[in-house]
């Protein structure tokens, strides 16, 4: 298989991506690739460079150097195409608290330029998928975190993007809702949608196919969760990603 054919299967390709803010280096020349249909986890603490990286990949921030493509579009020169081709969900920030779920969905339909004749169908789909049909006229701010999370996820899928970016999607959500959430993510991935997740919960990272661990702007580990644990903590069957991270930092 030629390199370009191989790369065709890649939803995201990142090469030596760097971002500096004045003297501070937020992202220090990282490289990785994500295959289509993969659940890919970007794991790191607050301030590790996660948010900066995801903003660059979504076309919201220009890198200082390096390059990357998202579903074939260049993040430096084709940011508008990227924004129309991705779904983005941030649990804390995606939704308008003083609008109802119905109004939030309508808003996103407009933003993503979904043709109006498809609106009815999509609205029903999201409301049923998230089981929010009964709640569709309550204010979003009044819904518990688990339901808000679903709605945000639903809104990010309205235009059927090939890839979605989920920024800390399960923070503050109860374990039961989290489990439902991950079941759904796996369903999406099975249909060929690439899922790029960031989180600081190491144990959640276990849900991903492959992950990259980032600390202070640099990648400290990459591979599947099991591989990483095994190579960082050989001989410790109970080790988890927390242990692996601590070993790798030393």
């Amino acid at each position, binding site marked *: 298989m030629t390199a370009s054919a191989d790369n065709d299967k890649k939803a995201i390709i990142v090469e030596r991506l760097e971002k500096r803010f004045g003297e501070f280096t937020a992202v220090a020349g990282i490289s990785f690739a994500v295959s289509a249909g993969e659940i890919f986890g970007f794991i790191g603490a*607050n301030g*590790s460079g996660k948010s900066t990286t995801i903003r660059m990949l979504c076309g919201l921030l220009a890198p200082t150097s390096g390059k990357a493509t998202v579903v074939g579009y260049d993040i430096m020169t084709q940011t508008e195409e990227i924004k129309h081709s991705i779904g983005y969900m941030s649990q804390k920030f995606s939704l308008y608290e003083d609008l109802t779920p119905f109004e939030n969905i309508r808003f996103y339909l407009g933003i993503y330029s979904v043709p109006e004749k498809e609106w009815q169908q999509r609205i029903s789909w999201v409301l049923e998928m998230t089981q929010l049909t009964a709640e569709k006229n309550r204010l979003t701010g009044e819904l*518990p975190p688990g339901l808000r999370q679903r709605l945000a996820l639903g809104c990010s899928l309205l235009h059927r993007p090939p890839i979605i970016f989920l920024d800390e999607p399960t923070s503050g959500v109860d*374990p039961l*809702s989290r489990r439902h959430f991950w079941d759904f993510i796996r369903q999406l991935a099975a*249909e060929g949608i690439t899922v790029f997740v960031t989180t600081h919960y190491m144990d959640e990272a276990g849900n991903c196919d492959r992950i990259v661990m980032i600390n202070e702007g640099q990648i400290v580990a990459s591979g599947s969760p099991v591989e990483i644990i095994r190579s960082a903590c050989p001989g410790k069957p109970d080790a988890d990603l927390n242990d692996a*991270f601590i070993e790798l930092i030393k």
Partner: protein
Amino acid sequence: MLASAKKIRAETVLSADDKKNGFLSLFSVSYRFAATEAVHDVSLDIEKGNIFGLVGSDGAGKSTLLRMAATLLKPAVGSITIDGLDTVADRGEIKDIIGYMPQSFGLYQDLTVEENIDFFMDIFGIYGAERKARKALYLGFSNLLPFTDRPAGKLSGGMKQKLGLACVLLHEPRLLILDEPTNGVDPVSRREFWEILDKMREGGMTILVSTAYLDEGERCDGIGLMHRGALLETATPAEIRYGFPNLEEAIIAKIGDVDRDLAQSAFNVKKIPQ
């Protein structure tokens, strides 16, 4: 005379309840924010020298509970006592024996590490040789001694939380109340943070901490599981885990038992319309 009258009232309440009285006790505590009941009828006893973890999602009522214990909110129903003192009637005295760390960084970003510490030292009246000694001790624990001149805003997430901890520890409170102190912090700093907590417990301090990390829950002597304002269960991690492969599974099951709606509301997996 007034002080002792208050004390008698607290003691009467305790004995009337016929409970094993903890160092920190909550008696049927409830709190409302406008229309929602943030905390509903919570009763709890925490023994001296224990680390007690509150686990639950956002909106479960953990922060509200902690703030009531820290005298920042008055319970609408019920009462809270710390070492026999009531959080409402004996508010002033309680503030001297507790240390509270709020959820977001509650220190001054434009002041240096040392200036932040000095502020707390001033408030608690710790001067001279004693101040020097405690600075060395608590900043030492937190590995912040090399950074005393750095503005707090320029510290990393982990360091900020450790500074916050140093500030609430330096007056050597008997009860430490921490609201999700390690949220978003890297694993190394989190582990160091908990090592400090263990050390404090060894010294006899009682600690009430809320956390979203289940591995931290495992390190506690007791856990309280909160969901939608109610305290579902209080037990040791081992007891809660009993019968399940791990703590997470146990909690998922217990939430599912109580919240039928949530249990059944899996995402309705339909194919995305073409």
